[in-house]
C-alpha cells in the first residue's frame, strides 16, 4: 500500500459531551475533525481523538470485536456497536455520536448498562432454576437434544449491550417496563427443558403491563440488535404463552 492511498478524507465527528460529575457542566455537542484511515471503525476514531485531541473524552470498550457489548452508542440516529461500525459507511463523512438513551450517564458516551443488566437479572431471576432431582450433584444430568441446545445457544448470543433497551420507545416512556433483553432471556429459560419454572411462574414475573403485555410491538429491539437476535419471534411466543395462561 502506498502512502497516497492511505491519505483519507477528513471526517467530522459531532460528539455529545457532558460530565455529570463536574459541577456546572452542561450537555453540549462538540465537533472534531479527524483524517480517515483504511478500515477505520468509529471505535478506532474515538481512540485517536482521545489520544491526539481530547484526553477527557469518555467512552467504553473492551474487546473491540463485537463480543463484550461495552461500546454501544447512537451513531447517526442508530444505536449500535462502535467497534463494528466502519466510518466508510458514511459517504458524507459526518458522524454524530450520542450516548445510549435510557441508561445512567457516566459521562459523554459512557453509560452504565452493567447496573441495568444486573437489576434486570435480579428482577426476572434470569438464571436456571433446576428441577429438584437435578439438585443432586451425584446424579447424571439427562442429556439435552442437540436441537434444543442449538436453540438455547442462539439466544445466549446476547452481549448485553443495551441497544434493544435504547431503541425501544415504550421503555423510554415507561421506566418500569422490562424491555426486550429481559424478555429474550426469560424466553430462553422458558424453552430450557432443565428449568423447573412453570407457565404460572413466568406469568407472575411478566404477565403484566410492565412485562410482555406492556410491549407495544414497536420492534426497535429487533431492528437494531447488533447480534440479530429474534426479539419479535421470542416476544410474540411469550405473549401467546402468557395470554393462553389466562382465560
Amino acid at each position, binding site marked *: 500500500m502506498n502512502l497516497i492511498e492511505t491519505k483519507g478524507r477528513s471526517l467530522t465527528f459531532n460528539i455529545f459531551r457532558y460530565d455529570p460529575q463536574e459541577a456546572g457542566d452542561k450537555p453540549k455537542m462538540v465537533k472534531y475533525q479527524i483524517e480517515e484511515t483504511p478500515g477505520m471503525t468509529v471505535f478506532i476514531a474515538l481512540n485517536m481523538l482521545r489520544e491526539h485531541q481530547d484526553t477527557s473524552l469518555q467512552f467504553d470498550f473492551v474487546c473491540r470485536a463485537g463480543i463484550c457489548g461495552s461500546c454501544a452508542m*447512537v451513531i447517526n440516529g*442508530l444505536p449500535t456497536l462502535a467497534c463494528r461500525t466502519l466510518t466508510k459507511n458514511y459517504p458524507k463523512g459526518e458522524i454524530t455520536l450520542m450516548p445510549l*438513551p435510557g441508561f445512567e450517564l457516566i459521562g459523554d458516551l459512557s453509560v452504565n448498562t452493567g447496573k441495568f443488566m444486573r437489576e434486570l437479572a435480579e428482577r426476572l431471576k434470569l438464571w436456571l432454576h433446576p428441577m429438584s432431582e437435578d439438585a443432586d450433584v451425584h446424579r447424571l444430568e439427562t442429556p439435552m437434544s442437540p436441537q434444543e441446545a442449538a436453540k438455547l445457544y442462539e439466544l445466549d448470543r446476547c452481549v448485553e449491550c443495551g441497544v434493544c433497551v435504547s431503541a425501544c*420507545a415504550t421503555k423510554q*416512556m415507561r421506566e418500569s417496563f422490562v424491555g426486550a433483553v429481559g424478555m429474550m432471556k426469560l424466553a430462553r429459560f422458558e424453552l430450557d427443558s432443565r428449568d423447573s419454572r412453570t407457565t404460572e411462574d413466568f406469568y407472575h414475573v411478566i*404477565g403484566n403491563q*410492565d412485562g410482555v403485555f406492556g410491549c*407495544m410491538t414497536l420492534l426497535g429491539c429487533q*431492528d437494531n440488535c447488533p447480534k440479530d437476535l429474534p426479539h419479535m419471534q421470542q416476544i*410474540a411466543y411469550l405473549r401467546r404463552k402468557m395470554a393462553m395462561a389466562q382465560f
Partner: protein
Amino acid sequence: MTVRTLLPASATPDIGGHPWSAKADKIQSATGILLGCFLLAHLHFESSILLGKQAFYQVVQILEGGMFSETGHGFPIVTQIFSMLILLVVILHAAVALRRFPVQIGQWRALRRHMNVIKHKDSHAWFWQLVTGFILFFLAPVHIFTMITNPEIGPHLSAERVYHANAWLLYALLLPAVVIHAMIGLYRVAVKWGITANRSGLRKLAKVMIIYLITIGVFSLVSYIYIGHGLSLPIEPYVPTGH
C-alpha cells in the same frame, strides 16, 4: 378478593402477574381486528357509488335486509342496531387502547425525544397510530351517532348528508385517520402475536392498502358532493329505474 390476595402484588409493584393484563391485550387485538375488518367491508360498500346510483341503492337495500320485506326496501333500523353494536366495540377498543396513551407530559416528551434521537420506521408508524387513534376518539363517535339518529342511507339521502348537511368535512378528516390507524393496527396485530414472520411483505401490503382505501374513499366522497351539488332542497329519495 380479600386483602390477603391483594397484598403481595401491591407490596411488590414491579412483579406479580395480573390476569387483566392478558385479557386487556386480547380484547384490544380482538376489537381492533373486528373494527379493521368492518372498515374494509364498509369502505367498499360505501364506494359502490362509484359504480352508479343504482349499484349503491341495491347494496343499501341488501344490507338493510330488503329481502325480508315485501316491497324489497330495507329497514333503516338495521343500520341503527348495527351502528350501536359498532359503537359498543369502539368504546371497548378505546377503553383498553387508552392504556397505551402517553398520558403524562413526561411520557410524551420521552416519546418525542426518542423519535428525534433514534431513527426507526415502526416506532414512527406507531406514533401515527397513536395520533390517528386520538383523532378517532372524537370523530368516530360523531359519525356513528349520526347513523343512529339519522339512519337514512341512499344515493340522494347520503348525498344530502354529505353536501347539504356538510358531513364531507367530517368524512374528509375521518377517512385518512381511520384508514391509517386501522391498517397500521392490523399490521401490528399480525406481528405482535407472531401470526406471520414475513414482516416486510406485510408492511408493503399495509402501505398499498392505505393508498388504495384512501383513493376509493376520496373518489366516492367527491361523487357524493357532485350528486349533492346537483340536487335541490328538499331532497327527493332516489327511485331506481325499472321500478
